[in-house]
C-alpha cells in the first residue's frame, strides 16, 4: 500500500519541503515569541481561574466553569505549550523556561520519557510497525501487519480505557509492558524508568487529588471531583486528537525493512502519507496544539506550531505535485474513520475482508 516515487522524485520532494522549512526558519522572530508568550499567559490565567473557581463548585454553573477553565488550561499546557516546546520549536528563543530538554509538563508522563518515546521513536520511525510503539500504543491492532488474536475482539474496551486514562497510559508507555509480557525484557530493566514514573505520577496525583482538595477542606469532595473531571476532559481530548493524527482510514503504515538506508526524501514521504489532518476554526487548532496539522507537524516537527496553519496550503501543493494524498477532513469525519479502523481490525482478517468487500 506504500506510495511509490522514484529516487529523483524523492530528492525533489525533499528539496521542495526543505525550501519551505528554511524560509520559515529564517523568518522566526518577534511574532512567534509574542504568540507563545500570549498562549502561556492564557494558560496561567485559566489555571488560576480554574483553581479559584473550583471550591465554589457547589454552585453548579461555577463547577462547570471551573472544570472547563482547568481542563482547557491543562489542554493548552499539554498540547500547545508542552508538546511543542519539547519538540524544540522554541529553542531558538534561548529562554530557559522554554527549552526542549528541560521543560516539564503538567501530565503524568515525564518530559524525559516523552522526549525518548515520542520525539525520537515516534517521530523518527513514524508508523513503522514494530518500531513506532505509538502505533496503536501497543494495545490496539490497527493494521493487518499484526496477527489477529481473539482478545482483539475486545479492543474497543481497551480503546475506551486508554482514552479515559490517557495520561497514565502515556506515562507508562516507556515501560514496554508488551515486551515484558513476551519476556523480551525484564521488569527490573525498567527500574530507573519506574522510579521517575512514580515520582512524576505521584506529583501529579498529589497536586490534583490531595493538595488542592485538602487546601479547601470543607468542600474537598467538590474540588476533588472537579479536578478529576478536568483531567478527564484533557485525557479525552488529547487522545482523540492524537488518534486522528495517525490512525485514520488511509494513514499508511510501513515495514522495518522498507526504512533501511532511508533517504531524507523517503523519510519525508513517510511523514506525509503516515499522518492526517483535520479542519476546524482557530481555536480547534490551538486546543489541538496544532496537531490538527499533523502532516505539517510530522514534516517539520521543530517549527513553531502556529506556523503550520500558514504553510499548510504549500505543503498540500507539494503533495499534489507528487500525486500524494493529503489526508484531511472535518474533525467528525476523521474521528469516525478512526473508530471504524479500531472496530475493523478487532475482527479476524477473513471476516473483516468480507465485510469490507460488502461495503464497497
Amino acid at each position, binding site marked *: 500500500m506504500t506510495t511509490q516515487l522514484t529516487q529523483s522524485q524523492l530528492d525533489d520532494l525533499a528539496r521542495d519541503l526543505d525550501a519551505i*522549512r528554511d524560509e520559515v526558519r529564517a523568518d522566526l522572530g518577534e511574532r512567534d515569541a509574542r504568540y507563545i508568550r500570549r498562549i502561556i499567559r492564557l494558560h*496561567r490565567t485559566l489555571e488560576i481561574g480554574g483553581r479559584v473557581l473550583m471550591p465554589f463548585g457547589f454552585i453548579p454553573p461555577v463547577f462547570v466553569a471551573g472544570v472547563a477553565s482547568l481542563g482547557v488550561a491543562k489542554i493548552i499546557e499539554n498540547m500547545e505549550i508542552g508538546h511543542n516546546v519539547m519538540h524544540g520549536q522554541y529553542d531558538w528563543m534561548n529562554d530557559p523556561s522554554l527549552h526542549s530538554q528541560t521543560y516539564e509538563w503538567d501530565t503524568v508522563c515525564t518530559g524525559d520519557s516523552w522526549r525518548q518515546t515520542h*520525539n525520537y521513536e515516534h517521530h523518527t520511525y513514524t508508523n513503522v510497525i514494530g518500531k513506532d510503539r505509538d502505533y496503536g500504543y501497543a494495545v490496539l491492532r490497527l493494521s493487518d501487519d499484526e496477527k489477529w488474536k481473539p482478545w482483539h475482539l475486545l479492543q474497543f474496551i481497551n480503546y475506551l480505557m486508554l482514552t479515559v486514562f490517557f495520561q497514565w497510559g502515556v506515562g507508562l508507555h516507556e515501560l514496554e509492558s508488551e515486551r515484558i509480557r513476551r519476556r523480551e525484557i525484564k521488569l527490573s530493566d525498567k527500574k530507573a524508568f519506574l522510579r521517575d514514573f512514580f515520582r512524576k505520577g505521584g506529583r501529579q496525583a498529589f497536586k490534583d487529588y490531595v493538595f488542592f482538595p485538602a487546601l479547601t477542606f470543607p468542600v474537598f469532595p467538590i474540588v476533588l471531583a472537579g479536578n478529576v473531571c478536568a483531567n478527564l476532559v484533557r485525557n479525552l481530548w488529547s487522545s482523540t486528537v492524537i488518534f486522528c493524527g495517525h490512525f485514520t482510514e488511509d494513514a499508511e503504515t510501513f515495514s522495518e525493512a522498507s526504512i533501511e538506508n532511508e533517504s531524507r526524501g523517503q523519510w519525508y514521504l513517510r511523514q506525509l502519507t503516515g499522518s492526517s489532518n483535520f479542519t476546524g476554526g482557530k481555536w480547534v487548532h490551538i486546543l489541538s496544539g496544532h496537531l490538527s496539522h499533523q502532516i505539517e507537524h510530522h514534516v517539520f516537527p*521543530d517549527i513553531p506550531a502556529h506556523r503550520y496553519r500558514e504553510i499548510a496550503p504549500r505543503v498540500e501543493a507539494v503533495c499534489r505535485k507528487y500525486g500524494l494524498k493529503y489526508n484531511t477532513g472535518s474533525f467528525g469525519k476523521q474521528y469516525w474513520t478512526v473508530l471504524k479502523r479500531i472496530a475493523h481490525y478487532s475482527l479476524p482478517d477473513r471476516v473483516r475482508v468480507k465485510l469490507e468487500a460488502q461495503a464497497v
Partner: protein
Amino acid sequence: MLSTIRSQGALHWLGRQLFNRDDPGAFFDPLLAVLNPMWVRGFVPARLLDVIDETADTRTFRLRPSARWQGFRAGQHVNVIVDVDGVRQHRTFTISSAPSQWRTDGTLTLTVKRHPGGHVTHWMHDHLRPGTILGISQAFGEFDLPPSGQPKPLLYIMGGSGVTPALSHLVSLAERDYRAPVTLLYYVRTQADVIGAETLYALAARWPALSLHVFATEEQGEAALLNEQHLDAVPGFAARDAYLCGPPGLMDRANALLARYGVQEEQIRCTFFSAPTAVAADTPLGGAVTFARSDIHVDSDGDAPLLEIAEAAELNPAYGCRMGICHQCSCRKTEGTVVNRLTGKASGPGEETIQLCISVPQGPVTVDL
C-alpha cells in the same frame, strides 16, 4: 543560574510539586511581566532610568534593579538579559559606577559601546529608552580593589571601553581618600573617544594621588601606542600593582612589557569582555572543539558533526534520531560558530542551544558537555 529563587525548604518543595519546575517562582512570570515587570522572578528586573551619551558610539545606561539585587564590588560585571527579535540574549558588561552610588540611590551604570557587527549592543543603543525594564544577573568577577589597609601604589593600563572597571575603581579609591599614587594610562583612538571623561578629569583635578595620561593613538600616531617611555614615566611602576583592561592587542603588549620589566604575575590583574565575533564566511569547516564540562579538547576536520566528534572523544551525549528531528541531542554551545547541516546556515557566535547531530564546527567551538 539566573533564577533567584533560593530553596526555601518546604515552600520550594511544594512549589516544585505544583508547578513541575525547579524555579517555581518563575511560573507566574508571564503574568507578572504584564502586571508589573519589576515583580518578575526569573531574573532580576532593572528599570532603565536614563541614557547618557559618552562618545559617538558609546552610551551609559543608568539602571535601578529590583530589591533582590545583591549589590557589587568595584570592578565586577553583570550579564544583561534582553529579548531581541524574540531571542533572549545575554551580554556581559562591567559596571562603570561605584558601589557607593548603589548604596545611596540604588542605581548602577553600564557603559556600552556599539560593537562593530555586534547585533545586541546596536540593539541596546537603538531601542533602550528610559522606562524600559531589562534583566540583569547578580554581579560577578574578581577584578577587585586592593584590600584597605596599607595603600599600595597602583598602575592602570586601559584601552577604549575597557576603562569601565577603572571608573568604578577610581571613584571608590577617591572616596576612600587613597593616599598612595595611582596612575591611569588610557589608550583611545581620538580624544573624542574618552569614555567617562567628565568623571576622569574631575577626579584628576580634586584627588592629588591620581595622575591621568590619555593617549590618542589615531591623532598622535605610533608614539601613542603603549611603549617603554610610557612606563618609564610612571615613578616606581615595577613595584606597583597593575590593572589591565582593554582590547587584546593592548593587553598582550602590556603583559609583555611588564614581564620584561620584571613585574610579577601576582601583581597584575586583567579583565576584558568583548562581544563574541563571528567567523569569516569562508572559514573552512572543522576546528578545535572544547567540551567544557568534561575538559576535553579535540581537533576536528571536514564536515564531522559535533555528536560524532564527541563520541570519538568517548563522551556519551544524549541522542535519538541523529538526523535533526528529535532534539534529544540539543545542548548549549557557549562559544564559536557551527554550521547546520540541514540548512547549510552558520549560527551566531554567542551562547545558544544547538543540535549536536547536525552541527558542524566552523572554527573553534566550545560546547557545554
